Every structure is written in C-alpha cells, then in structure tokens.
C-alpha cells in the first residue's frame, strides 16, 4: 500500500508539471499581453516593462525561471498590480475564500446527506418528491440568479441581511447558500441514488433477515458503503469551494481568491494566472488523493497493492 501511495504521489507531480507546462504555453499563445491597456504605451515604456519583468527573455528560459521560483515557494510578482506578489494574493485571498468555503462545506454535508437519506428511505413518497424538486432547482438555476434573488428578497425587500461583505456572521448566510446550493443538490441526488442501490444488495437482505431494526440496517450497514460515491464527489467539491468562486465573490464583494481565476486571465496577468492555477491544481490533486485514502477506511473491500 505504501508503494501504491508513493506511485500516486509521483503521478501527481507529473500531472502538476504538465498542468504548469500546458497553462504556460496556452497563456503565451493567446494574443495580447499584460501591458495592453486602454491607453497606448509608447514602445520604450513597453520595452521597459518587459525588461523589468523579464518578459523579453526567451520563453523556455522564462518557464524554467518560473519553475525555479516555484520550488522556492515563490509565485512571482504580479505584472498588473505593481508592488504586489502572487503570494500576497493567495495569502490574502485564500483565508477569506477558505473560511467561506469551509462553512459552506459544513452546510453542504449537513444538508445534502440527510436530504439524500430521507429521499432514499422514503423512496417514491412525497418526502422524496420534495427533496428531488429542491435538488433539481439547485442544480439547474445558475448561482448568479440565486444570488440576485436572495439579495432581492432578504436584503432589498426585507432588509434582514447585508447585501455585501462578510463583516458579521449575517454576511455569511447568503453567500453560503449561493455557493453551496449546487453542491447540496448534487450531493443529495448522489446520496439518494447510491443509497437506493446499496439497499438492493444481498447483504442488506441478510441483515434484514437477521431481524435487525431498519435504522440499524440503514445507518450501520448501508450508509457506509453508500457514502463511497458521495465521498468521490466530495473531494473535488471541497477543493472547489475552498478556493473560491468568481461569481459569488464578485456579487457579494468578498475579497477572496476566486476573483483572480477570471480577472487574471482577461488582464493577462501571467504570474497570477500561473499562481492560482498551480495552487488550485495542487489542492485538487491533494483532495483526490485524500479521497483515495478515505476509501480504505470506509470500505474494507477496497485494497491497494
């Protein structure tokens, strides 16, 4: 098993390297550069800027210089925001996105798993219908629509919650619902179908035949196995939620990391594009890895060798 995880770790590093390489190449292939702005810069100024940030070096040299910096944990300076580094962006933005995301994950897990169990246990009854209706709405309506609706109802009409910012605990309510809405719905559906499938298996029939009480059958025997597909999805979801969402952060004016994913691309802020991509990729790979470890703990049938 140790060998297996060592191999996985090696593959992760290779994947990471490929992600860096591909992002780097695509980014430089797109026309325009960090210094294309609405006001024309004279050629001298552009040359000075390029020299300052070593953008006049050949691309392979830039790439390896960047890698070298990465190995020292240095994501480089932002080309667009003078005096700031990508490390600053991550150090300032990630705690904010992470806190919002963390609360959202708790909300997602606490809401979706009971919803899914309820729907599966009451399969075909009205409880099932209600849960699935809510879940369908959550999956189909885009988050910016949900956000606008929530702001309209709870802060504009009722004046009960702030329309922006995370200045008090009240500020978290709307962003958490918006951010978690999709995941709650998706995971609830996943939980329901997975639990239904497990409930049809032989060992559940055996358990019931032994005369076990229904709650014990569900929570002790079925749930554990039914959680595996849910945890598979939960891994990437956690990475997604913790690194921030562009839409939610923009609408609720949350100073997180998510805004950088989109803005850095349209501004061609090369180092920021690279930095947030590498950061997110590492996070995602780590989560997938952790999920694999979890499999072993939950389902004794899964063995790695």
């Amino acid at each position: 098993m140790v060998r297996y995880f060592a191999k996985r770790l090696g593959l992760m590093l290779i994947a990471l390297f490929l992600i860096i390489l591909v992002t780097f190449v695509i980014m430089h292939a797109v026309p325009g550069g960090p210094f294309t702005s609405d006001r024309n810069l004279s050629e001298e100024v552009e040359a000075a800027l390029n020299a300052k940030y070593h953008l006049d070096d050949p691309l392979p040299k830039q790439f390896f210089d960047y890698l070298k910096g990465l190995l020292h944990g240095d994501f480089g300076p932002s080309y667009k925001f003078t005096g700031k580094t990508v490390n600053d962006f991550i150090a300032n933005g990630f705690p904010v996105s992470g806190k919002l995301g963390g609360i959202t994950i708790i909300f997602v897990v606490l809401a979706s798993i009971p919803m899914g169990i309820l729907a599966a246990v009451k399969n075909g009854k009205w409880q099932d219908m209600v849960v699935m209706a809510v879940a369908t709405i959550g999956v189909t309506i885009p988050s910016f629509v949900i956000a606008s609706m929530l702001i309209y109802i709870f802060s504009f009409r009722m004046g009960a919650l702030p329309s922006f910012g995370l200045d008090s605990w009240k500020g978290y309510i709307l962003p958490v619902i918006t951010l978690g809405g999709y995941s709650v719905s998706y995971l609830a559906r996943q939980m329901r179908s997975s639990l239904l499938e497990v409930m049809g298996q032989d060992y559940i029939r055996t358990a019931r035949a032994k005369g076990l009480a229904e709650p014990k059958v569900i929570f002790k025997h079925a749930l554990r196995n039914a959680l595996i597909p849910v945890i598979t999805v939960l891994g990437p979801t956690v990475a997604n939620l913790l690194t921030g969402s562009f839409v939610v952060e923009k609408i609720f004016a949350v100073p997180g990391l998510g805004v950088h994913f989109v803005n850095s691309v349209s501004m061609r802020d090369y180092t920021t594009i690279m930095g947030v991509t590498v950061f997110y990729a590492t996070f995602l790979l780590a989560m997938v890895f952790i999920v694999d470890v979890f499999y072993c703990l939950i389902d004794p049938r899964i063995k790695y060798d």
Partner: protein
Amino acid sequence: MKKRLSLLLALSMMCTAVLAGCGGKDQEPQTIDDVQENTEEEAKGEAAGAQEMTFVLSNEPDTIDPTVTNNSFATPFLVNCFEGLVTYNEAGEVVPGNAESWESNDDLTVYTFHLRDGLKWSDGSDLTANDYVYAALRVLTPDTAAQYVNMISDYVVNAEEFYNGEKKAEDIGIKAVDDQTLEFTLKESCPFFVDLVSMWVYFPVQEATIEANGDKWTTSAESYIGNGPFKVTEMKEKESFTLEKNENYWDAENVTLEKLTYRYILDVATALTAYENGEVDGVRTIPSSDIARLKADNAGVYTAPSYGTVYYDINCSVEPYDDPLVRKALNLAIDREALINNVAQVDGEPAYSFYAPGYVVDGKDLTEGRSEFGLSSTADPEAAKQALADAGFPDGEGFPTVQLSFYSDDNVKKIAEAIKEMWEQNLGIKVEVSSADWAVFYDDVQNGNYEVAAMGWSADYVNPMSFLPLLYTDDVTNNSFYSNPDYDAIVDQAKVEKDPAKFGELVKQADELVSADYPVLALYYKSNNILLKDYVEGVYMTSSSNIYFKNAKVLEK
C-alpha cells in the same frame, strides 16, 4: 454655488464661535425644516453628524503610485491622498495647489512654480521642491516602468534623453532652485503646461518611503505617504481602504470630512442595492440601465460632463474606407439618438466630431457654434445612400461585407449590434460583427488589423492637445491611421501657440477641417455619473472624472 458659499461662511462662523469659547452646545437641536432656510443652523446640523462616509469603488487600480500608473481607477486615491502644484476647484478651473503662484518666460518655455510655506508630508516631514524633482526622476527612470512617462518626456528638456540613457539626471530641465522654487525648462513653448502639471504623474512622492520599501511602498498604510487632504490609515486588500483627514495638509483647517472609507464592490448591481438600502453613502459606477430611473427618483445621481468621446475607429488605410464619402455614408446612416436613449441607455450628447466639449477659452467652450458636418442626431438614410452611391456603390452594391469588431462588454455589444442593423437597413450593405476580449481586440486595432472597431477616448488632461494627436499622422494613439498634412500642420502650429484665443481658433480650425473628412464614427460625448446621498455635500468631480472629497461634508441624515 450660492448655497455652497453660504455654507462655507456658516462653517467658518461656527468655527470662530467655537474658538471664542461660546459654542452652542446647550442649544436645542434643530429640526430639518429649520436647517433648510437658516444657514447657521445648517452648519450646526453638520457638526452634530459624524464626518464619516463610505464610498463604493467598482474597479481596482493596478497601483496607487502616482508615478507609475495611468489607470483612472486609481484617481480616488491619487487626487485625495496627494496634491500637485495645481489642482481643480468645483467649477473645474485650475487653481493653486501646492504651488501658490507661478509664472513663465515670454516664449513659454520656462515655467517657475513657487511652493507654499510649510508644506508637509502626511508623516509630518517637510516637503520641498526637491521632492518634485525626485518624483520626476522616478518617472523618467526606465526601471520604474511609469506608464505616463511621455507626459513628462515629451515636454521637458532632456527628459527623453535621460530616459534613453543619453543624458544625466542633472541635465533634465526640472530644477529645484531652492526649497520652495521649482523650475521646468521645456523643449518648446507649451501654452498648456499648467494644465499638464495638474496630472498625477507630476505629483511629488516621498523619497524616504520609496527608498525604504521599493515598489511595495503603496501596499501598506504606514508606508503610503502622501501630501493630500487625506491619508490612508487602513488597507484591506480588495475589500476596503480607510482614509482619514491628513492633519499635515496645508489646508487641513478647511477639510471637514474625518473619515472616508472606500469599499470595493466589483458587482455594480450589488453596489446599487447596497446604496438603495442605505448601507453605503455613495457609488462610483452606476449600471447604465438604472441611470434614468435613479434620476427620476431623485436618488442622488451626480452628473459631470466628461472630456471624452465614444466613437468607432474606421481604418482609413484600407479600401474602401480610405474614401471620405464611404465614411460619410457610414456616419449618416447612424441614429445617434436611438443609440444613446434606447440602446446603450447612457447619459450622453450626440457627437459628430471626435473632439469633445469641455475646454473653455474666454468663457466660451471651443465647440460652441461648431458645424454638425451635415450630420444630425437621427439617421438620414437618403443622404447616406447618396453618399455611398457617389463613392461608387449605388444601393450598397459591390460594397464588401463590413467587419465590425468590438471588445467584450455588454454595452459595447448592444451598440455594435444596433450599428450593424442601422447600416444594413439604411445602406443595404452586409455587416459582420465579431468580438474579442480587450487585450486581443486592442492588439488588432493597434496593428491596423480591423475595418471598423469600437473605441473611446477620455482626455488625460483638460486641454484640446489631449485629443488632437488622435488623428495626427503616425501618432501612437492614431488607431484610425488617418493622415492629412494640412491637419498635421495646424496641430503643429497649435502646439506652440501662446495666445489662448489664437490657440482656440487653431483647435477649432483643425477640428472643422478633419471632422468634415469623417475620420471616425463619432457616437456620443460621455458624462460621468456617480451616486451620492443628499446628506453629503461638497464632493465634486472634474471632467477628467477625478472625484475630490476635500470639501465634503456630511449633513445631518
């Protein structure tokens, strides 16, 4: 204006009263109705309220270093945390700032500015003419990568040579004669140099903090040292910046506002909701579709004409657009009123020339009484077809499909699609629209790789010379690749004309000459709108969209 004057008077009266030790603390609080009429009571109402306000910004600047940026999103910081030699008043006129007076030699090549007594930085240290010299040197050092370097190097003697490494620092024509006297020597006579030094690239920056912190001096409140009416006391990246009154500002006694919080809300709809909920006191950017409603509701829309034009570049270097008749036809076929009121729903005036109103000579705007070049606010399909026929394309036959490009932006997209429709309907030609994000789009436009492209121009400084180069042969900003030696000659003349009246005449002449040639598709002149609650007084915005808070007061809510 009158009201403001009385308010100021009342305020100074109140200050005297307090100083004399007979402040009216024990008087009864006034009702709002009393405040309306009685100016003295109005001032009292002010003193009662906390002098604090929150203003929403919708875009983040690349940096708030005046020597580096040319980004207009930085102006809320630059013009309120710094002050140059001259500044603007509420009427939009240049008035003394750090300099109390200035003069020039006869041929307008040497300008001498006299600084006020006792100028200080926000950390309390002395500010001298040498700080101005240091700032200019910083701008002219290639390592700084100053985006506005041309605004100095194009005018000041040896500045360009220094930038290129051909001359030494002491050769540059910016000298501190003594601690309070600053002298600029220019390459050639420049009648608008005082307008130019109002730009932030001419602002002073403090050597001590920059030497200690490098590029990072703008990233923490402690090291961001300025000389304006306010100083930053807290920086929360991407969230909020807190500005407080700078007690070391030379005119601090006339600054009433104690605390100004800039809050970043990048989504303009959220910002508007926050404003309407009363969570904030002002907003920098209003969603354009809401402007009409907010104005009707008297919600506090403050409008200032902006010295800028929204237009489409027509590539004058490629066929068939090199023919003025074709460009005339394209211009005639546009219903500008519909674009402004129905399509873009912006606050604007129809434009027939690239040159915007906003520059005044002898009390008259240069564009007053200007020709409309045969255009009108609505489309004229007959005349448009005629012009196209004269160019050799009767009923649009044989005219190639127009490639209309624009950059990704909702409003720009709406306009582009409307223009396509107008041209297809009124001229019988085919139009293909395409969009790309700004960086890609602009790259193409600069390289002449387009036919007709969405564009706009906001003047960097309030003088026609910030517009005229747009059509000057081979100028770096001339993206329509228009070339007319007669026009170039008039611009050259205007550049060195000392007499303001004659200068104005030349500008008019140049504008009339070139606009009759339809080098661009002018659409409308912009205005800037911000939202401010009615209990905030004295905030003003110049035509270059700089917002000044130094006279701001918060009345009783």
